[in-house]
């Protein structure tokens, strides 16, 4: 046995500054083997668990028989973002969590995400067009934002014969799916390629356009037959504590975006990083920080482990990557020296009564302040409300609790010509939810336009 060198000159395991590479898609043979394990359940619980309504049992059957075009069509017709969802969906909480194979001794649930990704990768890499669009209606729809919700909405609008025009303030499509997914789940190329494939079916995109600034809403209303809002949420929310502007304090989404775009090199001084939050973004940021080589990463969360909003399987994986946590800990102040963060002053919390969501409310313990040292602070406590992304939004579009209010059946807002979907309506959910809401809105827009009678 060779002892492993403590400081190898060229360690293949050295962390990449952009984080680990996501796994490549499966080969057709690997997919066939996995698909062959599927029982093809009746009333398949996996299919019923999909927020987008993907018919999982049927698309896997088509993979098994080699009807790959049919498999891809089944997925795409329910979830235009099916390929990236195959990478990023919390399948353990959805379809895979329902798979009955897990209940048979010695069997594992079907890797449904991998199969879905395979089917759509197969179709996209062949540049297939899997459906015929309805005859052109002559209707144009403006979609604000080119993230998952708008892409899914546009895809369905093209199928229905309408002309979607996506107005995106950034220079490329994909939204948070491109910028803020942890690198071990997905790289940046895939959501870009997926978006380009979808747009290529007949949507138009205008980049660098800020609706409400470059184009007033009144102009949209004049030029388009309907408007879909899919802007997502604002930038990382701030802690609202003193000295938050110190160097070394940043938001989780900002951090992930910088890591994935390759313009971030972990400063050598970052020996110990504090990540504030207990949701999936906090877990993703913490795990990614470990994966780019940060020696110590501590999650700072005001409730306890049982009350974390992040998924248990994700938190377990982060712990296995070496992330630790300081629970029942609430930051009250950023500690800084010469303008650079050196930790957090925190107060101890205890759990009180349940709040309206049923989770136990954290309550500060008097005179329990202490200092938690850290060379950087990553704030992952959610994103700002969507209003600031929509300057000049007509006032008769109702917003409540930082969300655009929509009908759950149709995605229509308080105005009949405005529709919305994705994070700006659900407060921040999964890509699959955004895709489902985009599709739902497209169908409602189609109904609305046909009802107009012209």
């Amino acid at each position, binding site marked *: 046995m060779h002892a492993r060198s403590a400081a190898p000159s060229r360690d293949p395991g050295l962390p990449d500054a952009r984080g680990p590479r996501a796994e490549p898609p499966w080969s057709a043979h690997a997919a066939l*083997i996995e698909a062959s*394990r599927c029982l093809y359940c*009746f009333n398949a619980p996996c299919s*019923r668990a999909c927020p987008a309504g993907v018919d999982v049992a049927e698309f896997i059957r088509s993979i098994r028989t080699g009807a790959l075009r049919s498999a891809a069509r089944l997925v795409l017709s329910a979830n235009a973002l099916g390929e990236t969802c195959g990478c990023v969906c919390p399948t353990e909480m959805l379809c895979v*969590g329902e798979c009955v194979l897990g209940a048979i001794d010695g069997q594992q649930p079907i890797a449904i995400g991998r199969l879905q990704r395979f089917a759509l990768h197969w179709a996209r890499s062949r540049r297939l067009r899997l459906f015929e669009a309805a005859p052109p209606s002559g209707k144009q729809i403006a979609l604000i934002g080119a993230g998952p919700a708008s892409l899914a909405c546009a895809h369905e609008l093209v199928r229905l014969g309408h002309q979607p025009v996506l107005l995106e303030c950034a220079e490329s499509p994909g939204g948070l799916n491109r910028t803020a997914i942890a690198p071990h789940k997905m790289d940046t190329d895939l959501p870009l390629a997926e978006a380009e494939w979808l747009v290529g079916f007949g949507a138009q995109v205008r980049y660098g356009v800020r609706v409400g600034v470059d184009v007033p809403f009144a102009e949209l209303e004049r030029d388009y037959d309907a408007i879909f809002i899919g802007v997502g949420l604002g930038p990382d929310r701030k802690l609202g504590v003193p000295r938050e502007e110190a160097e070394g304090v940043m938001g989780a989404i900002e951090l992930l975006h910088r890591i994935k775009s390759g313009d971030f090199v972990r400063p050598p001084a970052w020996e110990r990083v504090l990540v504030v939050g207990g949701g999936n973004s906090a877990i993703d940021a913490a795990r990614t920080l470990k994966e780019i080589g940060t020696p110590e990463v501590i999650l700072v969360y005001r409730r306890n482990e049982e009350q974390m909003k992040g998924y248990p399987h994700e938190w377990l994986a982060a712990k296995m990557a070496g992330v630790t946590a300081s629970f029942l800990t609430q930051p009250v102040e950023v500690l800084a020296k010469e303008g650079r963060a050196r930790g957090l002053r925190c107060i101890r919390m205890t759990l009180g009564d349940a709040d309206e969501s049923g989770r136990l409310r954290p309550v500060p313990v008097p005179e329990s302040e202490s200092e938690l040292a850290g060379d950087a602070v990553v704030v992952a406590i959610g994103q700002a409300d969507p209003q600031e992304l929509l300057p000049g939004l007509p006032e008769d579009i109702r917003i409540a609790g930082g969300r655009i209010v929509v009908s759950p059946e149709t995605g229509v807002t308080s105005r009949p010509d405005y529709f919305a979907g994705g994070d700006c309506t659900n407060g921040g959910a999964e890509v699959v939810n955004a895709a489902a809401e985009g599709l739902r809105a497209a169908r409602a827009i189609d109904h609305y336009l046909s009802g107009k009678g012209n």
Partner: protein
Amino acid sequence: MADLSVTLAGIRSPNPFWLASAPPTNTGGQIELAFDLGWAGAVWKTLGHETDQIVNVSSRLAAIRGAAGRVAGINNIELISDRPLAENLSEIEAVKRRYPEHVVIASIMTGERRQWEELIRQCEEAGVDGFELNFGCPHGMCERGMGSAVGQDVAAIETITRWAKEATRRPVLVKLTPNITDILEPARAAARAGADGLALINTIKSLMGVDVDRFVPYPTVAGRSSHGGYAGVAVKPVALQMVASIARDPQITIPISGIGGITNWRDCAEFMLLGATTIQVCTGVMFGGYRIVRDMRDGLTDWMDENGFDSCSAFIGKAIPNFVEWNDLDLNYKVIAHIDEEKCIGCQLCYPTCRDGGHQAIKLPEGADGGHSVRLQGVAHRRPVVDEEACVGCNLCSLVCPVPECITMVPVDTGRAPETWGERCPQPAE
């Protein structure tokens, strides 16, 4: 420990495991390796008369696949041995010299009586323990009036078997083709003509599939194909039925060497329980190698020990009395499906299978169209229910169920004495 040795038609064999006449018995080198690994006998790849020209094509094999792409059956368009007869004979001689206790049978096939006689004499001189007349090959040779062309013609079977019996005093087995309406007809013909034993089945005439992109059946030879001989696990039920039908036929008393889809010890036990004295393997070895005999030997020995069988003769044919005509089955016996509530995983595969292919005796659970979430509501909410009045006891759901011993077929008391169709509707005496 149980004794695996058997004697078939006077041929003593250290165990019942023989290689069938096929690619695995093409050369002396192959057969010596097989004997080293535990095979007791080999039926040499069929030899023709030295004047019979044999030319093979490429490719030759195609497969039908089951779950996860595993091969369930193959077909073969390879002909009998395409090597010079003299070469084969000298190898037979060498093998018998080195392995005097092992069994070497010459599978033979030719045309004229004089040719059969010459071939038999040459093989005898090389030292074979017996002969197997190949009346079964369903491709290539039958077009020349040989192989299954003989096996489908009762008169030809009798004639050629008699020629062979008159030409040699060594045991003569007749290998039968399954490509026939009633296997008893050729089997009885061979027995009448004095055959010392029967070997079956040869391969089944088949076409394995079509390349849907190029519109050519498989296996493809320069853009065309031809029918072949079907073999492997998939043909075992056909073989078992034919072996058992011959074994229980009072007119046939000669022993049987069973062939058809045998790949493991359990297959061997099944063929022997239905009357085979030895078994022959081809496809199992083509896919797993000669080494599969290790499991066959150990598994059969352990099974015999567990059941108290000292020798193979203690169990050969033991299942035959239980293989009867439909008319002799008890009409008043009934089983119904029972779903084990603890084992059920809620896949509901039994529901459409009974609704669409059974007798509509399985009902979905109440509510949510039967499609409750496993994670949120629990498996119990997805568990189907058997309507015991409607269940006819067909077995279908228990075959479809993916969980071992979850759906079992439970006998129920019908309150009626056993009665067969034969008893209920006696046939008038002729």
